[in-house]
């Protein structure tokens, strides 16, 4: 007998836990906070060898791609687990842009045109990045498209593209459709990012050679679908960030002594951490619900995603802020990794729509109209 009324599955399956273990072990060995900081200071946060192992070796790049198209045939639930671990490690990997946003865009393009790209993407052979600002929210108007200048070339500009510096191929929305553009044919200008672990660049396209993947309407719909999926799964990255910040802070306050007592024995401190734990546990449920709704293509997926984003970005930022504050002076130093998480959490709170944007989406979707 099964209980009446379908409910989202909010637990982790055994397969998902195995995937988590593999990703966590890889990141623990090859993506420590010290190495992340060292690479970021050198101006090259991405580690191509690590990406190869993550994307191709463990096979996470193609989780959203069906097996017949060369992928793993898994889905958003599994990708969400990878993102939790990437958040926990503040890992500079183009996973969200490549394996989530680009994969979903390509899956909604013309099948014949997109198939070879999906195979490359799923195998982790080339890195795909959509040419959109990281702040682009699902449901919000898209930036003005670049111009099709005829004979298969595009001209225009896209700004604040996350992980563009790691891209082999940019997915570009133009007035005549959605196109794949070789990154080598585009002038990229790096920005100095707030978040050192997710580099940003602006792209100038000057009659860049482009391959058409979909018409304008299909292209825009594909991008909106990808943004919805990206926003829903970003919540899992935010859970990972919050979890690391909470774990590290608790561990520190159990051993750090002041006034001849562990700092974690003071009730004022304990209550703050207990509240943060509650909020992190709630964020996990919200992020799981979003991943499950996307996996099931549930009718209320847009609402579940908006709820998860409206909630989880705030929890991640607060966890990182508490981490800095409760570490005292050491939390303000460059050596301690807390700042990597704070910067990632704050940038993530702008990514794919702010909490305010998602609250407005909730107003529409839950029939709670503004005055």
């Amino acid at each position, binding site marked *: *007998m099964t209980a009446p009324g379908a409910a989202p599955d909010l*637990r982790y399956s055994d397969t998902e836990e195995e995937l988590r273990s593999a990703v966590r072990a890889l990141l623990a060995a090859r993506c420590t906070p010290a190495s992340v900081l060292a690479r970021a200071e050198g101006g090259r946060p991405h580690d191509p060898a690590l990406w190869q192992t993550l994307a191709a070796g463990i096979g996470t790049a193609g989780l959203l791609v069906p097996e017949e198209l060369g992928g793993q045939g898994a889905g958003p639930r599994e990708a969400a687990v990878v993102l939790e671990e990437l958040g926990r490690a503040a890992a500079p990997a183009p996973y969200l842009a490549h394996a989530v946003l680009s994969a979903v865009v390509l899956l909604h393009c013309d099948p014949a045109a997109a198939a070879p790209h999906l195979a490359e993407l799923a195998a982790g052979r080339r890195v795909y990045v959509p040419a959109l600002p990281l702040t682009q929210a699902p449901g919000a108007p898209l930036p003005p498209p670049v111009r099709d200048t005829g004979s298969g070339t595009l001209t225009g500009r896209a700004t604040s593209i996350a992980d563009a510096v790691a891209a082999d191929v940019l997915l570009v929305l133009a007035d005549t459709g959605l196109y794949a553009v070789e990154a080598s044919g585009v002038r990229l200008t790096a920005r100095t990012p707030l978040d050192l672990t997710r580099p940003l660049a602006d792209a100038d396209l000057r009659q860049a050679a482009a391959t058409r993947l979909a018409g304008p309407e299909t292209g825009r719909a594909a991008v909106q679908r990808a943004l919805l999926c990206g926003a829903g799964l970003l919540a899992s990255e935010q859970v990972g960030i919050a979890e690391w910040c909470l774990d590290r802070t*608790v561990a520190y306050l159990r051993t750090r002594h002041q006034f001849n007592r562990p700092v974690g*024995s003071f009730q004022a401190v304990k209550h703050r*951490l207990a509240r943060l*734990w*509650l909020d992190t546990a709630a964020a*996990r449920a919200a992020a799981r619900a979003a991943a499950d709704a996307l996996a099931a293509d549930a009718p209320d997926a847009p609402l579940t995603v908006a709820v998860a984003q409206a909630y989880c970005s705030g929890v991640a930022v607060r966890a990182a802020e508490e981490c800095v504050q409760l570490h005292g002076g050491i939390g303000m130093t460059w050596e301690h990794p807390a700042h990597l998480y704070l910067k990632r959490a704050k940038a993530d709170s702008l990514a794919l729509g702010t909490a305010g944007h998602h609250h407005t989406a*909730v107003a529409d979707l839950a029939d709670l109209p503004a005055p």
Partner: protein
Amino acid sequence: MTTADALRTRVRDLLAAHPPATTGRTAFLQARFDAGLAWVHYPEGLGGLGAPRSLQAAVDAELAAAGAPDNDPRRIGIGLGMAAPTILAHGTAEQKQRFLRPLWTGEEVWCQLFSEPGAGSDLAALGTRAVLDEAAGEWIVDGQKVWTSSAHTARWGILLARTDPGLPKHRGISFFVCDMHAPGVEVRPLRQITGEAEFNEVFLTGVRIPDAHRIGDAGQGWEVARTTLMNERVSIGGMRIPREGGMIGRLAEAWRERPDRRTHAHHQRLLGLWVEAEVARLAAERLRQQLAAGQPGPEGSGMKLTFARLNQEISGLEVEFLGEDGLSYGDWEMTRPDTVDFTGRDAGYRYLRAKGNSIEGGTSEILLNIVAERVLGLPAEPRDDKDVPWKDLAR
């Protein structure tokens, strides 16, 4: 192992032998208990079949669909949520046989005699005394209890009393079943800020309790009570809450019905609380799924904290949103309700009643300590009451 199919057969057999349309309410509930379909995870002969707890929801749903009466779980919540698991875990065979069936059918209502005027959050400091009259094999109880819901309808109370004041406070306590009809038990309504008297004060004067109504060994009352309190706090995780179930539904309804009262400032707060309530609902659902799979997470200790805070904020906003209507209050007449409807009555009542959510069943401050120490493993604050005899503690 009892399977889902076997349970379905039992449900059909029960319905065939005792058609709800022609069977009296109590008779049906007794038959259901005897068929092992009361709480399927309890042992056979005690209303259960030793089946997985997760199968209960389907049994309840199938019986409800057939028009069978339920046992009004809200009216007998303390019996179901606190007394029953404690008796099952620590009671004697005779106690289980005597108490569980009428408890479950609702023929006997239970209340809980724990808190005292001088021992609320510091429950183990309680001072109600029980002295053994060895010749009679009875304990003689004197003291005062407070915040006792259902005491005026209860047949039995689970009672904590001090049996050895010379020991440190946690070690000198024993756990009893108190006959609420016994001479010396006086129940007085305790009127609350809502105007009603949902709780009571209970005065115990020379009340005699047979030794056979002691649960667990003398002096082991604190350990027994921990079972009770643990069950009180996890029971909230067992329910499936629909979207906009609970107080947020009342506020959302008011928002939809009263476009004239909407303001942008209230809209922002409404959306924030709606999202938080939805996330809390999902967290409770995740906990429920973990419990059903036999992997209870530590989240149970925290859900009450979240719901208490949200209920207070949501009902507070609702009163404000209603404007002039929020200034009126339904009724200040003192009533003594059998059950409490947290989402019922008017916004003012909800606002006032929700103030109790962060106090009853453990204050939010104590629960935050429990989360910090048991879940996060943070060190306890230094304390100086653990090794001192109770009689020497400051009061």
